[in-house]
Structure formats: structure tokens, C-alpha cells
């Protein structure tokens, strides 16, 4: 069963002077529980596609369905709530909030939910699972790159999303830490059944996933 369905997605970036086509007629279906890699050269539209899947950006044309919801019909507020409930994000440069400690960073998605119960317990549970429970009171500036990405993953899963969208999650890490992060994503995929869509340049990491989609000039080429 497809959890993400992209139909005829196009994305054109326009400025006063130029028009750049980032995506053209992209059709992609991601199955529930699948671990999908998106590969391609820089600037080919991989991250743009991931942003559209994450409802962080709107396509110029085409439709996006996630968990059977037609996302085009959602208002800005409804999209925010939808992201909060269904999606987790992991970025290459972690994007932790520097003013908040690890616990508060992990708790962030829960902060935007109306139910406030059991938050601390959930944060601790996730932190323990990711091996960062001893760092909960630390600021991001006091952590290593690998620990920062663990915090980012903890933040991505704390709200129990059904999908994780990871944009080059190991791009800023050395190979050992990169492998650790990949192991974590695979564990979340296998054990928790979370669907993972990952943009990567790393062929070896991509080969470990269920499927690879290759991009070139805004189109899927395989």
C-alpha cells in the first residue's frame, strides 16, 4: 500500500529574470514501511522533491497524497498539523535549535501538540534508545556531530511519525558516525515500521536500502 504518492509533480522556480525547472513530471510511489533512497547529482531536484514530500514546499503542478490525504487541499495550518503528526525530518546540518538543550530540542514536535501529557517520559525514552540520555541537559554546541544527528533523529521520531524524510543525513559526519546514523535509520525502519525516504550521495548507503530512485535534471531516470 502506497503511503506517499506523487503524480506528475513539476516544480519551477521563477525570478524576474529567469525560470528554472527543478522537477518535471515526477511520478513516484513509496510503499508503507519502505526504505527508499533518492540519488543523483547536485542540483538535480532531489531535495526539492523531498521538500515537496514533506509539505515544506508546494509543487508548481501535480498532486501529493500522503497517508491517503490529498495535501493540496490542506490549509497552511492544516499542513503544519499534518507534518507534526505524520512526518519526521532529518537534515544534513542537523538544524538543532542552539538556544535549547537536548531535551527541549527533542521535545519540539510535542510542543506543537495540544496533548501535553507524558512528554518528559517520551523524550527520555527516545533519548535512551538513541544513547543520548546522558546529554539531555547539554546544549547542541556541547555535542559532537554524531550526537547532534542522534538528537535530530530523536526529534524526528519523538512524535511517532509514520514517515521520516532524511536529506543527506550522513553528509556532515565521518564514516563511522555516518554508519551509526544509518544503522539507527534502518532500525527505525525495521523495528518500528517507519517509512524512510533518504536523499544521499553515498552509493554504499543507498545500496543498503530497499530501493534506489535515481534523478537527473529533475526527472527520474530509472
Amino acid at each position, binding site marked *: 500500500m502506497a503511503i506517499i504518492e506523487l503524480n506528475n509533480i513539476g516544480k519551477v522556480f521563477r525570478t524576474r529574470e529567469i525560470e528554472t525547472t527543478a522537477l518535471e513530471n515526477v511520478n513516484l510511489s513509496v510503499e508503507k514501511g519502505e526504505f527508499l533512497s533518492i540519488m543523483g547529482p547536485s542540483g538535480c531536484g532531489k531535495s526539492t522533491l523531498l521538500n515537496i514530500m514533506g509539505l515544506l514546499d508546494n509543487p508548481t503542478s501535480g498532486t501529493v497524497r500522503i497517508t491517503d490525504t490529498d495535501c493540496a487541499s490542506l490549509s497552511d*495550518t492544516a499542513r503544519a498539523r499534518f*507534518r507534526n503528526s505524520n512526518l519526521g525530518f532529518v537534515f544534513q546540518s542537523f538544524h538543532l*535549535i542552539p*538556544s535549547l538543550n537536548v531535551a527541549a530540542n527533542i521535545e*519540539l514536535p510535542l*510542543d506543537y501538540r495540544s496533548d501535553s501529557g507524558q512528554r518528559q517520559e517520551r523524550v527520555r525514552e527516545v533519548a535512551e534508545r538513541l544513547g543520548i540520555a546522558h546529554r539531555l541537559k547539554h546544549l547542541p554546541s556541547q555535542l559532537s556531530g554524531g550526537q547532534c544527528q542522534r538528537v535530530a533523529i530523536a526529534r524526528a521520531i519523538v*512524535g511517532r511519525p509514520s514517515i521520516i524524510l532524511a536529506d543527506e543525513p550522513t553528509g556532515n559526519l565521518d564514516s563511522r558516525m555516518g554508519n551509526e546514523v544509518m544503522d539507527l535509520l534502518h532500525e527505525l525502519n525495521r523495528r518500528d515500521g517507519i517509512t524512510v525516504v533518504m536523499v544521499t550521495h553515498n552509493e554504499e548507503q543507498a545500496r543498503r536500502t530497499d530501493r534506489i530512485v535515481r534523478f537527473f535534471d529533475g526527472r527520474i531516470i530509472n
Partner: protein
Amino acid sequence: MKTKLLQILYDMRTQPVIAWVTVAGTALSIFLIMVVLMMKSVTLTPFAPESNRSRMMYAPYIDVRMGENNSSSGCMSGEIARTLYSGLDNVEEISLMDLDLSPVNVKGTSGERFVANSRRTDAAFWEIFDHKLLSGRYYTPEEVEAGTKVAVVSEATARRLFGTADAIGKTMQVDFVNHMVVGVVANTSTLATIGSGDVFTPINVHSSSDYLPEMGEISVALLVSDGADRDAVRRQVESRYAQVNSALASEGKWIEYHNSPFDHKLYTTVTVYSNTTPNDSTADAIDALIYALLLLVPAINLSSMLHSRMRRRVSEIGIRRAYGCTRARIISDIVGENLIVTVIGGIIGIAAGTLFAMFYDGLFTDAGGEAVRPALGMLLNLRTIGAALLACLVLNVLSASLPAWQAARLSPVQAINSATNINK
């Protein structure tokens, strides 16, 4: 709340100049607003000898017209004052008096000749204004009627005239005319612009100009009943004007009614000219303009600093949006954070205002006189502090709204991927 405090502490650590300038700017703004409020407060808060400010009305002048291009305006004769203002319903007391102080040359037995603030009044003045009689007595209606040369002086003036406060029965010169001191009253603050004085003497209640019998040296203060309808009082006065004017019509004269008597706030806030109708809305508009400027100028600066702080947080806003933060929440969070900073600045401003009121209250009084300093409660009260806190809120909304709205307007992907200008 905890998150907002953490963010503020983080800003203070990482951008100390901007953060502290923001706090200091807010504090200065609130301090200035408090000083203006205190200046207002001393003109309106009741205190001795003007404990009845809320019940006072004043009629300083009349405006006599003798054709389109011929008029004369100024203080009124005793007869016109009584005709227009005596015996009005809901008026408990009326005093014929000088509403302004006049400098007079005085000399006592100490030999020193000096200039003192003089006020001429009738005997009813002592009923309306609650001076504290230290010794002797006030002058009587009979003495006023007869124009007896007696005087009541303040304690400080008595000491300067005679070297002692024990001045009863002694003779002093007021503009080179001998007067007997019959009473000594406690010193009063010059902030009581209508009730205070150094030397009080009987006014000529029969004064009348040779040129225009309607004019003279008299102004009028009225003490109305608690809760009296002031407009109803004015309507009575207007009708008295009509009666007087019908009598004057045969002489081709009339007295222009300028909506007198005026309330204490109006009379002490705007400049009242003798031949125009003072306008309450002008006073209010001037007040509003002063407060708007006091708020708007720092708000623009604070807004610019908040804008600068927000530029550093663009990607954070994107992340928050990605994880489900709505635009409304972004705005409320930024305004909330800014409110905390504004309140911190506001508290510092209020503290500075309080210290100012405690130690520099002399600035509110006329320099050089024997003025009594205003009580702290006159300067600093719940109304002043409440208004300062309200100003904090307005300052916060004015300074935070635009940067918050701009931040909320960013698309999540634009914010995450860019540390570029927030306006982009």
C-alpha cells in the same frame, strides 16, 4: 514560557550588545513615559491645599464684545462675578480670587526686602482650599468687604520676614503698603498652582474697571457638590450670561460665553485664553501625540533590533514550521519572547522612575522658592505604574508585530535552506 526564557538567556549570551541595548532602550522609554505621567499626576492628583481638585471649576475671565471689531477680555468685576456664578445649583462654595500668583515686594521687621508670591482672595477661599493654619486666623468676610489691610503668610515667609514663625499681629509691607499679619499657614507646594502662595491678602471684591464696568480684577473658583453634573452647572451659567447680555444689549455690548467654568483638568492642562473657548480635545490630542512619540520612536528602534535578532533565527523558524508550528504560533512566540524582554526593560524603567520620584522630586517644583516637595504617592501611584506597564505592552506590540509577521510569512523550506535576509 521556559523555552522563551531560555531563548532570551541565549540571546543575551550570544548577542549581548543587541540584547542589552534592547532592554536599555525599553527601560529608557518607560522611564520617560513615567516622568511624563508623573508630571501629569501632580497636576491632577488631589493634595493639600488642593484636596478638592476633582470638584473644582474655574472661571478666570470674561470676554466683552462691543461690535465686530471691538472687544476687551480679562478678569471680571466683583458684581459680574457674583451675577454669573453666585447661587448656582450644585455649587457648594464660590471664591472670588486670583487664580494666578503675582510677585509682590514684601518687607518685615527683619529688614530684608524680597519678592514673594502673592494671592488675593476672599474669605471663602479658606473654605475651598485646605490650608493648615499654624497660628492666628484667616481673614474674615467683613475684613474682605472692608478692604482691611491684613495678610496671611506661609511659615517660610514669616520666618524670612520676621526671623520667626511667631508673626501674628506684626506688620509687614506688601508692595510698600503696611499689612497686619493675622495668620500663618503651613508651606505649600508650588505644584498647587491655584491654592498655594507665600502671602495672601483680601481681594477687592468690588473691583470694577473705569473703562468697562463689567471688567475688574476678579476670577472665580467654584467647589461643586460630589457627583455634580458639570454640564448642568455650565448650562446655568450660560443662562446667566443670556440674562446679563439682554441687559447689556441697550449699550451695544455683550459678553461672549466661552463654556466656563472649566474643569480642573482642562484649566491646568491647556493654556486658557481670555477670548477663546478652550478645547478639551486639544489637550487630549496633545497628550496622545506626546505618548505616541514616546512609544513610537523607541518602538521603531526596538523593532529594528528584533529584526536583526530574527535574521539569525531564520533556519530555526523553518525547523519549527517543519515540525508543526503554525504561523500564528510563530507570531505569538516571537511577540511573547519580546514581551518578556520588554517587561524586563519596563521593570528597570519603573525602578528608575521610582528612584527619580524619590530623589529628584524637586525638579517638579519651581526652582528657588520655598516649595514643599510633592509626596511620593503623588508622583508614584498605581495609576502611574499601571500606565507604565500598559506602555510596555503597547511598545511590545508595536516593536514585535512587524518582525514576527515577517518571520511567520517565510515558507519553511525557504527558512531552513537559507540564512539569508528575512525579507527575502
